[in-house]
């Protein structure tokens, strides 16, 4: 089947992820949405790799995963510490600083 469809899918996933970031309150969920966006990118990479017939795209996919993992580590650490001090993981609660 035409690989271009995978591109559409990845775009869709990316958009879903972005929307999630915009609408969800819970930091964890927001974070997962971001992961979703990254994975959408991965899909795009792999698809292009398939279309172009070179390996770079797939290699990058692995890099992306690693980076995502790293982000998880850092991100969760931060979010957890925030949760522990506030007993809430809502990103909206964290709005002491404004204006």
């Amino acid at each position, binding site marked *: 089947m035409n690989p271009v469809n995978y591109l559409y899918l990845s775009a869709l996933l990316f958009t879903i992820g*972005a929307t999630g*970031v*915009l*609408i969800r*309150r819970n930091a964890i969920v*927001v974070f997962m949405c971001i992961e979703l966006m990254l994975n959408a990118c991965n899909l795009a990479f792999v698809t292009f790799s398939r279309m172009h017939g070179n390996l770079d795209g797939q290699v990058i996919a692995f890099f992306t995963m690693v980076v995502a993992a790293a982000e998880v580590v850092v991100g969760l650490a931060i979010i957890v510490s925030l949760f522990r001090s506030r007993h809430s993981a809502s*990103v*909206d609660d*964290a*709005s*002491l*600083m*404004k*204006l």
Partner: protein
Amino acid sequence: MENLIALLVAAPLLGAVVLLCGGRRLDAVGHWIGTILSSASFVIGVVLFTDLLGKNAEHRTLMQHLWTWVPVEGFQADVTFRLDQLSMTFVLLITGVGSLIHLYSVGYMEHDERRRRFFGYLNLFLAAMLILVLADNYLLLYVGWEGVGLASYLLIGFWQHKPSAATAAKKAFLVNRVGDMGLSIAIMLMFTTFGTFAFGPVLSHVGDASEGKLTGIALMLLLAACGKSAQVPLQSWLGDAMEGPTPVSALIHAATMVTAGVYLIVRSGAIFNAAPDAQLVVTVVGAVTLLFGAIVGCAKDDIKKALAGSTMSQIGYMVLAAGLGPIGYVFAIMHLVTHGFFKAGLFLGAGSVMHGMNDEVDMRKYGGLRKYMPVTFITFGLGYLAIIGFPGLSGFFSKDKIIEAAFAKGGTEGWILGGAALLGAAITAFYMTRVMLMTFFGEKRWQPDENGNEPHPHESPKTMTIPMIVLAFGSVFAGGIFGIGDRFLHWLEPITGHEEGNSPVSALTVTLATMVVLVIGVGIAWAQYGRKPVPAVAPRGSLLTRAARRDLLQDDFNHVVLVRGGEHLTRSLVYVDHTLVDGVVNGTAASMGGLSGRLRKLQNGYARSYAVSMFGGAAILVAATLLMRAV
């Protein structure tokens, strides 16, 4: 000989500097220093005069170049003095009368602790006035012109603690500034027309200039003259100027400074001759003023103000004469000189009266003073006779000549001007008689003032009477000396030029007419003030009288139009400056602040809204990029 000219100015200038910077240690001798230096100047004047008499007419112009004042590309002003018959006449008048009045002041100001300063100012005035008449170009003349203005400002306001005096001084200076504006514009016009403003080149090249320009110059000069010589419409300051000490009124506001306008016109005769329209205006101004002043003089009860009115009117005669052109120049100056004598004498007399009456100026509180102060009475009386033109006395010669000349102008113009002059003569006779009667005749009308001390009229000290006597001699004989055999005419002619007008009426008729109106004037006055006692409080009087008491409402006009209007203007401008000009800027700043305040609301602290802005931004970025490609 030329080198002496500078000394004429230097002597009083030195006096001014010494007296004003000398400090209290000179208080004891200050007045004598001043008097000596002014008399020194007079002596130098006499020396130069004899020297001039020694030369024949065409070599009687001495020049002294001192230094180059303002050298700028295409613009050259020198400090150069020019002594010719005209300026010589003035030098003698100024220094002569000046010295006498210095002497007089020694006595008059005896009890004033700031006498030194007073003499400093007087010397300053002499210096400035001499610069005025000796200057060889209009810019230097302008220096003297404003210099005398400053001196008169300082002297009118000499008793600064009196608000009235301070105000009068300010008024005098301001009104004069308006005139000075005219002078400076005239100079600019000369510069653009002739490329210079030195007497020689300008007056000799008048022929090449267009009449329009010349008329403009002439009118501007006239404006200046009106300011200095208190001619309508700039006459309003002279009456108030009487706030100054009486010697000042005598010297500056009667004998010398106020005649500077006449000097200016006569000096610039060539220009006026080439601008007949301007001349007409001059004559009109003169005529109007001589009536105006006379009328005002009739209504005043304040002896000095009455004399001030008369001064105005007499200068009106001179300006009228000057406006007649070569027919009248000489007589204008001649009347100026004789007037210098008798008017100064009258003022000194008035001063002497006030001196004896605890500075009372209201003539209604005088009466019968002739027994108490005989010398003053006689000298004043002689001055009186002179001014009303009693046959044989100074005024008779000079004034009649002017009236003749007025008629000699010819045509309806001549009739009108002549008529005005005659009428003026009648009124003069009336109000001067009035002054005379109210002051020296009748019986005493003075009462003890609120704190009970009654004035004890007494004759003034020698230092005061001597000058009065001298001036009285002048008032009696000067006219004769000048007039008989046209001596003065021959003396001045080379400078001013002279031509006989074709008078429709003979000189004799004019003289007779003058006599008649004189008698009428005196008669009416006697009828009103001589026969029946003068009321101690002024009657309400006719409308004209009341208007005349207030200088024919001219001040009220000024006050409403200029003063009030000006106040409103400045106040509103201050408001505008603060709200509008400043407001625009502050407004911008404020609006920036407001905008900032609204924008920072976007920073609401919610991470998600930040994300929204990022997402939107990204979308716009992408869209824009694509759009760029599309277009």
